[in-house]
């Protein structure tokens, strides 16, 4: 049976790290809220899938990672990208399909990647990431770097065969991998309580020979603690872990989704459960940080996002010459 860990403050993070955690979560939040508004103007091509509400998961996990480590993400990948250090302005330009984007406009929102930062990409295929992470973890193990691979995937992907195969392989090969199931309650328009046969995704961990934990995804400190334990276990050769993070996404499956399948959980979450609100309360109440410091960060992030949008809109689009380049290294 998987265990539910309590959430708490005073995690051993120093003030500098607490500020950084807040900054990154705030950056993700403002980025997604802004993309939500800009998408409605019709200027952003294609589809976007927003991560607002889920920030504690990406940041709570990625704060334990460094240059040795790789992550794979989902179609809802902006949060993981930002948490892993992908350049925010390049991300915005990519979403606008510009040549200055992270992928020179050739990938878009669902394929933002920065391999130099160990970010194997947002992925348009549900369940596409976990097998790849078995590979990055294998590479780290064979290369002896102490690095880990972290696969973020959703409740939808938790039912995909590729994910289940990856869980099995990670245990069989004793890989330094962490699987983070981000259960936001819905796979597109279908609830996870209906589509996941077990009570919890984490209950499947035992079936694949690894520890499983369930974490309140609105609680940065709970995520940080659970992720720290799992990542340390992996680094020390103790094998993989499955972490199930439970929360809610503030927006639809995609921008444009009317969300008629939902109740009123978003309003409640924004008012009382929100990860940034909780973080503020805990860090300030515990005397670590001042409200002013956090307000300053909010303002700085706002300026950054404004600049990102302005620069993206002004940037050139790729040209004819770019259409068939980079299909291969050489052909």
């Amino acid at each position, binding site marked *: 049976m998987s265990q539910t860990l309590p959430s708490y403050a005073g995690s051993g993070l120093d003030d500098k790290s607490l500020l950084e955690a807040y900054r990154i979560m705030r950056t993700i939040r403002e980025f997604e809220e802004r993309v939500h508004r800009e998408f409605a103007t019709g200027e952003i091509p294609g589809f976007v899938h927003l991560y607002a509400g889920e920030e504690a998961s990406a940041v709570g996990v990625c704060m334990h990672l460094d240059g040795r480590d790789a992550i794979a993400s989902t179609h809802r990948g902006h949060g993981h990208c930002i948490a892993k250090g992908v350049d925010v302005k390049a991300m915005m330009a990519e979403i606008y399909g510009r040549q200055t984007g992270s992928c020179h406009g050739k990938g878009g929102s669902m394929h933002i990647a920065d391999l130099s930062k160990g970010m194997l990409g947002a992925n348009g295929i549900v369940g596409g990431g976990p097998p790849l992470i078995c*590979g990055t973890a294998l590479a780290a193990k064979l290369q002896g770097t102490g690095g880990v691979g972290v696969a973020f995937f959703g409740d939808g992907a938790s039912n995909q065969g590729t994910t289940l195969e990856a869980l099995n392989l990670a245990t069989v090969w004793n890989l330094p991998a962490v699987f983070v199931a981000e259960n936001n309650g819905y796979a597109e328009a279908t609830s996870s309580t209906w589509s996941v046969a077990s009570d919890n995704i984490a209950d499947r961990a035992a079936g694949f020979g690894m520890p499983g934990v369930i974490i309140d995804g609105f609680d940065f400190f709970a995520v940080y603690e659970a992720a720290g334990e799992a990542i340390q276990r992996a680094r020390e050769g103790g094998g993989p872990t499955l972490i199930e993070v439970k929360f809610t996404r503030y927006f639809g499956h995609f921008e444009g989704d009317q969300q008629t399948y939902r109740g009123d959980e978003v309003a409640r979450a924004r008012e009382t459960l929100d990860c940034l609100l909780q973080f503020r309360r805990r860090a300030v109440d515990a005397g670590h940080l001042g409200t002013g410091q956090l307000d300053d960060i909010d303002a700085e992030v706002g300026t950054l996002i404004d600049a990102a949008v302005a620069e993206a809109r002004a940037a050139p689009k790729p040209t004819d010459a770019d259409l068939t380049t980079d299909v291969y290294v050489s052909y």
Partner: protein
Amino acid sequence: MARTISYREAINEALAQEMERDQRVIVMGEDNAGGEGSPGEMDAWGGVLGVTKGLYDRFPGRVLDTPISESAFIGAAIGAATRGMRPVAELMFIDFMGVCFDQIFNQAAKFRYMFGGKAVTPVVIRTMYGAGLRAAAQHSQALYPLFTHIPGLKVVVPSSPYEAKGLLIQAIRDDDPVIFCEHKLMYDVTGEVPEESYTIPFGEANIAREGGDVTVVAIGRMVSMAMAAADELAGSGVQCEVIDPRTTSPLDTDTILESVESTGRLVVVDEATPRCNLATDISALVAQEAFGSLRAPIQMVTAPHAPVPFSDALEDLYIPDAQRVANAVKATVDWER
């Protein structure tokens, strides 16, 4: 120094020489060693048809057996390739592509383009294809056309032990994802193969036989059918030029077009089933680029549009043979408007 070895030994040698030369090369697949977790010997199989035998002991820790979970381990090979390894993963039968195709065609093939030119995915996927072993419908297909269709993949179909060794070494050194298709009936075919390491470039066809009357392009094991037909036809004064493209992607269109511009007649021999295979691909290319040179309609010699049958009586009818190639050649020679 060349000597006679088998297609199987040539592939094994290519793997061993590259693993010796480059620590980043690793091998993985179902029973690529065999015996994992079992009470008997390790390296019990060395691959289902023995192609990887001996590598497990020679390169400790670098030959990995896998559970039967192609999506996971083919995906793992791809992920490891993005992080500096040079994996050679085995998809035991090309027919199993269905259970892992996403990792190949939506992930590996597309990383470089989708990520704006910043990804390098040097993975090789070795796989067995082809009919003739009475292995029936789900173990006998020639599915390289499906891989050839995908931008971002390279596809290699070696026709002899010499081709197999050079092309596999090239594949391992290549920085793009490569699908390396070995015909399962050819493992015991022998030929002259240099002892030393060598490469054969991709996108360069081999003119297996020169001739001025008819161009015969053949894929993989079909090259030997074309050569047998060519020998028979030479007796009646028809000289065939047999071209082995070696790689279907990239495809050496220049060599094919140059030959057709000279002969004016084309026969394409492809064991794959007829809709959207290499025969249709090459024929259309030639029809567009060398229409003026053609003196007769192009002939395609392929399997029928049917799954591979089990009974030897039927399977022997299924596979294109030298007689059918010769008939097709004659059809181009005898054709009148």
